[in-house]
């Protein structure tokens, strides 16, 4: 069959299954190894000051990443507010209006966009929103994140609506509904869980992202709530602290990594739960 008649089928079967199990197992094990290190190195440094204080100046012990945590919420929050309407409505366009060549173009663009390295998207945000205004800002970071979230939300919305039988939309139209009422009242409620899943996954994706922040949000040592100023962000703080020569900052980097990984995993698990509840009911 495969030409290896020197080895009997049973031996080949055993060997093949063993090797494949080894590969799958080692991939899963590497997640556990990373998790164990992050918990072991990071858990000890998580305490109240770490969660509530801003960074201390270099050389002064203590301090925390509270401004980075708040910054992450602000930056990701603004990105979500911008990405959801554009993404969901574009997804509705693809699923319901399905305008032939135009829809194909949007689909292609969305595929292309989802593969663009985040650092290139950061450059885009820089030349559009940082350079003209002459300063780094949290808003430019949110803009970069919006661009990264859009393809995920667009395809999730289109996919979610595609699983709703088109007859629902058409019968609503036949009952005399406007496009709006049919889409929003009849189709969207049925598609909502899968759209929420896509949205949560897109939030998880940008929450762990650092590269575009380097020259958009830039980072800050202080409490900043103004979205048009440089702002701290957790993953950016981890990056800076890890590359610093200070032992105490290394410990804080691990602690920050623990926070970040927990946040991203929780988002992923909620996203999966939202989807599985839909498919099981």
């Amino acid at each position, binding site marked *: 069959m*495969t030409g290896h008649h020197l080895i009997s*089928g049973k031996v080949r*079967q055993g060997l*093949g*299954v063993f*090797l*494949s199990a*080894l*590969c799958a197992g080692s*991939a*899963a094990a590497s*997640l*556990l190894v*990373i998790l164990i*290190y992050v918990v072991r*190195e990071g858990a000890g440094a998580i305490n109240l000051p770490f969660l509530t204080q801003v960074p201390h100046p270099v050389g002064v012990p203590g301090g925390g990443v509270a401004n980075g945590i708040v910054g992450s919420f602000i930056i990701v929050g603004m990105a979500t507010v911008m990405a959801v*309407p*554009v993404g*969901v*409505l*574009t997804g509705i*366009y693809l699923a319901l*209006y399905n305008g032939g060549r135009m829809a194909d*173009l*949007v689909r292609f663009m969305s*595929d292309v966009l989802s*593969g*663009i390295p985040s650092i290139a*998207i950061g*450059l*885009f945000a820089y*030349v559009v929103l940082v350079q003209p205004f002459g300063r780094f800002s949290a808003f430019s970071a949110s803009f970069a994140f919006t661009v990264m979230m*859009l393809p995920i939300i*667009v395809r999730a919305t*289109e*996919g979610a609506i*595609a699983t*709703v*039988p088109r007859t*629902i939309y058409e019968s609503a139209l036949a*009952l*005399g*509904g*406007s496009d*709006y009422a049919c889409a*929003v*009242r*009849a189709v969207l*409620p049925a598609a909502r869980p899968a759209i929420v899943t896509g949205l949560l996954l897109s939030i998880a994706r940008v929450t*762990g992202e*650092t590269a575009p922040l380097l020259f958009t949000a830039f980072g800050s040592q202080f409490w900043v709530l103004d979205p048009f100023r440089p702002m701290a962000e957790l*993953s950016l703080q*981890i*990056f800076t602290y*890890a590359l610093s020569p200070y032992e105490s900052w290394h410990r804080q980097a691990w602690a920050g*990594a623990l926070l*970040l*990984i927990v946040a991203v*995993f929780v988002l992923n698990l909620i996203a999966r739960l939202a989807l599985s509840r839909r*498919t099981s009911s």
Partner: protein
Amino acid sequence: MEEQAKAERPSYLSVAFTDTQQAARRPTVIVARRASDSIAGRCFPWLVRGAMGIFLTLTIGLFVELLVNSLPSIRQFGLAFLWTSSWNPVTERFGALPFIYGTVVSSLIALATAAGVGIMGAAFLAEFAPRAIAAPLGLLIELLAAVPSVVYGLWGLFVLAPAMQHSIEPALQRYLGFLPIFGGACYGVGLLTAAFILALMIVPTITALSRDLLQAAPGELREAMLALGATRWDAFRAAVLPYARSGIFGACILGLGRALGETIATTMVIGNRPAISMSLLAPSYTLSSVIANEFTEATTTTYISALVELGLLLFLISVLVNSVARVLMRAVFGATEPT
């Protein structure tokens, strides 16, 4: 997929009709009960098209802005930018070759390492593992894909790099030191360390996509082989794998694309030295990490523009790589399924 849709149909209908019954006793009036609806109804098609317009503008704008901002560098250095290896901000002579070399070599080593593990792992999840094992194992592997790259970088810098420096690299030199690719000093950070971290990062991408592709193979392929007396492994090798082969190749290319564009993790472990060395143990540099490290320090137009041109190169490479990958995978999944 079809069974799922069938199972869901009744619940969706009930959703639609409960909504209707709540809105009015007569189910014929699903719409236009509220005054705002007629206004919203008139605006909606334009709203949807407007959103699509914004989406297209952003995507095209991304390319145009990168291109326009690279123009000073493109005019000054021309195509020679691609094969010049000097990178000197003081004299403002810029060439991308060391970064292209570092990006391509680290990603290819990562792909070579990850492809075998990913495809075999996918075979286990899709073909051999009992459901009770395949589901949690698959979840762990998918979560591996969700680990933020800064965490990979942190782990690579403080755990993998010291291990490379003190045990793995000396061992490589002891047994394979006669090969020029394992020559020179052991730094810990370098091309090989970056490649390993990248491999770890793309294994879950390749595994999860390959598993889905293998599961998309028609069951009859497998059953026919089993009926002929083949073992499950032989059925996999001779019938299922060939069916999904081009798609799995696409999944690998997609993994390669992810490795090529990865920034933070590589920046933390590759050593950041813009030089081409025969040795894989030597520090190197990638397109994305030089942008990450130098962009905020760049002051002159030429310098900034040269860095943006590196970003444009990354953009073009990833468009090419991802298009190829999607075409290959779509052939297996069928044109209907969005990937």
